[in-house]
């Protein structure tokens, strides 16, 4: 059987099943195709064909049918990009070594004078010039071709500078070999060594940069690497391993202990705990049972289960995360836009500066003027490094956004990261942000707590109030044999409580006003107890059976374990922390006191939250709003930075600039710390690159010569230029070592 290949394409523009057949027909008619299957759900095409199936011709075929296609980004692309990177690195290193080796005798000649003087043996030097040219063509071909192509398109790049600098050195040197009489005797010096060493060093610099750049995109590679390669799918009653690409929504998948969960889905049978830390940053494994959702890329810990695939391919949570991280990495914060303007005019400006430098030396310099002019102009061309300037922002952003993703923090755009670093106030929505967002029974007072809970659960079973849910849930935890009885004549009294008949008793559950209304006497002690509970941000409910108070049951939304510490970290960063809640003042105050917040607003209706944010902004604050992204979408959009907390794996929260997959305020602080660290890193890079260029160019032009008699060697300029972009990338790589404050030794001190 001949070898066959499979190509996966992502198809754009399909709307209906009719489109599927059109695309399939188009693909099937492309040369070498044996079979083409199009999946409308994940908008991909899987094409089977002869070995060497041409992806480009498949894409053209799809386009001819009126749709767009591009290669699917997946793990195979990671391997490919790694391979390309390694090949590029090797070829640059080879060029460096060849140019370096050929220049070695010339370097030795500088000290040992092995070669005869140029005036004595011009032919020897012509030969040296020939060897130099051959080496330049081999090791620096990409600079010359690039420079020429850019020139012919009225564009100038870094290649232009390198090619002009080294080209001028070689041309001048050949000229004095061929016609030495045209320049004064003392200016008869060849610069073949400089041309070669500069090319060697710049190749080395680029090779090191390729290596360092590879490390910067580690985060995205890690995410892509989370994808499983196969899935065990149940088909015709049999469990078979199929490639991930062949899993469709609706398939039933088996996962065994320790295995990676291949695609997103919903558990049908069995239960287990799943480690989701690689996606959400949540260290505790999550329990999954029938009906629970699982996410592709996470790891099943102990049990085995069957689940139905719901989202595959580009629709999966992991694909969304990867897409979001990539988009943010590619976006540009404002700070980078100014640099773009500079970078756009940089190279022609340096060319002009080189001409001006040469003219100044030719007019006012000491003899041999032509040598000084050439060396100075060449050094100006070589030392200028637009790369360092242009790389400064994007490279740090790639590392910073990637680092955030490691902590389960998804940043939508570079600008959000920039603004997050400048926040002065953080507004926290209380419910679900500072607190768990799920009320629980905290206290039961009375002679027989179990009986109180039993009756309370019985009357609340019919209620839809969140407080009722807490009581029913608590009753469900009661030991076996204490089943909750049925309730007859259930009635709900808005704002007061509920009533019903349980096991023949008339039961009331509600506040003191409700009891008074129903003529149930409430003792002073009970009222006092209820008051105390209310002071602790709890909601006390009195239980009366047959006209007598039998106890108090209190429900509260507990503060998250780590809220207090996270708020302290925010305050330590110098941020003003404000809490908003729809609860009454007493509850708000109790929660605020527990977590160390002094600024809070109670009785804020959901629709008024964004007005509160706007009010703070009008007072000059740069506001970050933290909420669940659902009830407070307008406030999140209004804020300078909207943080959606506890998104879990529902990552596509549109209203938020920053989405935290974990439901912990710690993530907000970590996001702010990463933003600050990234911005600091960008500024260091920009400062370094600006200083390097603004100091380097005048020194190269010979500014120090009249003052100190110092002239920069073009070879040193080449080394400095090669080092400058490597330094920028290496500095950005330092961000990879970031660790949040209070967690590990790094202390976020990037």
């Amino acid at each position: 059987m001949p070898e066959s290949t499979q190509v996966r394409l992502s198809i754009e523009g399909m709307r209906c099943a009719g489109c599927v057949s059109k695309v399939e027909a188009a693909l099937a008619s492309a040369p070498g195709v044996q079979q083409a299957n199009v999946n409308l759900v994940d908008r991909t095409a899987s094409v089977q064909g002869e070995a060497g199936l041409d992806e480009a011709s498949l894409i053209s075929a799809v386009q001819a049918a009126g749709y767009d296609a591009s290669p699917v980004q997946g793990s195979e692309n990671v391997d490919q990009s790694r391979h390309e990177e390694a090949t590029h690195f090797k070829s640059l290193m080879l060029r460096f070594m060849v140019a370096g080796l050929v220049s070695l005798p010339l370097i030795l000649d500088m000290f040992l004078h092995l070669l005869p003087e140029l005036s004595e043996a011009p032919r020897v030097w012509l030969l040296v010039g020939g060897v130099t040219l051959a080496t330049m063509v081999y090791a620096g071909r990409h600079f010359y071709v690039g420079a020429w192509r850019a020139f012919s398109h009225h564009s100038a790049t870094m290649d232009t500078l390198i090619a002009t600098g080294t080209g001028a050195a070689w041309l001048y040197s050949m000229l004095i070999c061929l016609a030495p009489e045209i320049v004064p005797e003392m200016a008869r010096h060849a610069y073949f060594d400089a041309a070669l060493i500069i090319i060697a060093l710049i190749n080395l610099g680029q090779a090191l940069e390729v290596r360092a750049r590879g490390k910067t995109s580690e985060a995205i590679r890690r995410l892509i690497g989370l994808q499983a390669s196969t899935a065990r799918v149940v088909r015709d009653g049999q469990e078979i391993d199929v490639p991930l690409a062949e899993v469709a929504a609706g398939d039933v998948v088996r996962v065994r202990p320790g295995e990676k969960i291949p695609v997103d889905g919903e558990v049908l049978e069995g239960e287990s705990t799943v480690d989701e830390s690689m996606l959400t940053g949540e260290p505790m494994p999550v329990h999954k049972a029938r009906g629970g959702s699982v996410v592709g890329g996470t790891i099943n810990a102990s049990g085995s289960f069957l689940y139905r695939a719901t989202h595959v391919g580009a629709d999966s949570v992991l694909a969304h995360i990867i897409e979001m991280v990539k988009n943010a990495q590619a976006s540009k914060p404002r700070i980078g836009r100014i640099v773009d303007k500079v970078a756009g005019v940089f190279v022609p400006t340096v060319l002009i500066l080189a001409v001006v430098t040469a003219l100044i030396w030719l007019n006012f310099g000491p003899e041999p003027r032509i040598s000084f002019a050439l060396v100075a102009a060449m050094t100006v061309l070589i030392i200028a490094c637009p790369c360092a300037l242009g790389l400064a922002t994007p490279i740090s952003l790639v590392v910073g956004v990637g680092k955030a993703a490691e902590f389960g923090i998804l940043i939508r755009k570079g600008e959000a990261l920039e603004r997050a670093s400048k926040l002065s106030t953080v507004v926290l929505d209380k419910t679900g942000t500072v607190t768990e967002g799920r009320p629980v029974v905290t206290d039961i007072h009375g002679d027989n707590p179990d009986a109180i809970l039993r009756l309370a659960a019985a009357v609340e079973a019919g209620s839809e109030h969140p407080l009722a849910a807490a009581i029913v849930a608590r009753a469900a935890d009661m030991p076996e044999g204490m089943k909750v009885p049925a309730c007859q004549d259930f009635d709900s009294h808005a704002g007061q409580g509920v009533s019903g008949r349980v096991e023949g008793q008339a039961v009331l559950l509600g506040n003191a006003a409700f009891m008074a209304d129903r003529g149930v006497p409430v003792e002073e002690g009970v009222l006092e107890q209820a008051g105390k509970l209310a002071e602790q941000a709890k909601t006390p409910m009195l239980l009366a059976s047959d006209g007598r108070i039998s106890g108090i049951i209190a429900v509260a939304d507990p503060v998250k374990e780590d809220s207090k510490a996270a708020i302290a970290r925010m305050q330590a960063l110098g941020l003003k922390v404000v809490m908003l809640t729809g609860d009454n003042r007493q509850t708000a105050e109790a929660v605020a006191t527990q977590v160390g917040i002094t600024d809070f607003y109670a009785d804020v209706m959901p629709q008024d939250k964004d007005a509160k944010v706007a009010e703070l902004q009008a007072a000059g604050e740069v506001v970050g709003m933290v909420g669940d992204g659902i009830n407070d979408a307008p406030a999140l959009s209004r804020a300078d930075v909207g943080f959606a907390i506890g998104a879990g794996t529902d990552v596509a929260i549109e209203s938020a600039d920053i989405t935290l997959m974990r439901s912990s305020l710690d993530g907000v602080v970590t996001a702010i710390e990463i933003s600050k660290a990234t911005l600091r890193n960008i500024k260091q890079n920009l400062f370094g690159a600006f200083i390097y260029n603004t100091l380097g160019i005048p020194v190269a032009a010979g500014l120090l010569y009249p003052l100190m008699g110092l002239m920069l060697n073009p070879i040193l300029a080449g080394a400095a230029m090669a080092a400058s972009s490597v330094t920028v990338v290496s500095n950005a790589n330092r961000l990879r070592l970031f660790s949040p404050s209070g967690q590990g030794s790094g202390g976020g001190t990037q």
Partner: protein
Amino acid sequence: MTMYLVNLSGLLLIGFIIWWFWLYRPKRGVVADPGQVIEVRVKDGVYDPALIEATAGKGISLRFIREDETACAGQVIFPGLGIQKELPLGRPVVLRIVPDKPGDYDFQCQMGMYRGTLRVN
């Protein structure tokens, strides 16, 4: 006399640099019919073609093929249209663009060294 000529040549060279790199505006680029796919090669530091003309309100597809190993060529950005796309080496990437308003929309690499223009008429 020699210095006079040298200085004059230097000044002419500066004038040439300014004209060639900054002032020069190509008169016509590749004209894209609505719905047409234009192939843009990214090679040796340039986009080829670097000037593409399109009609306002009509969609065109640009198919970028990166043949340039330099890391700088790894992305194409249309700042005016808010488009940013990764260009994997040797793998075509298609961008469908529907420009609403007439005008010049530049596209560039991450560092703004590779430059091209989408002219919307």
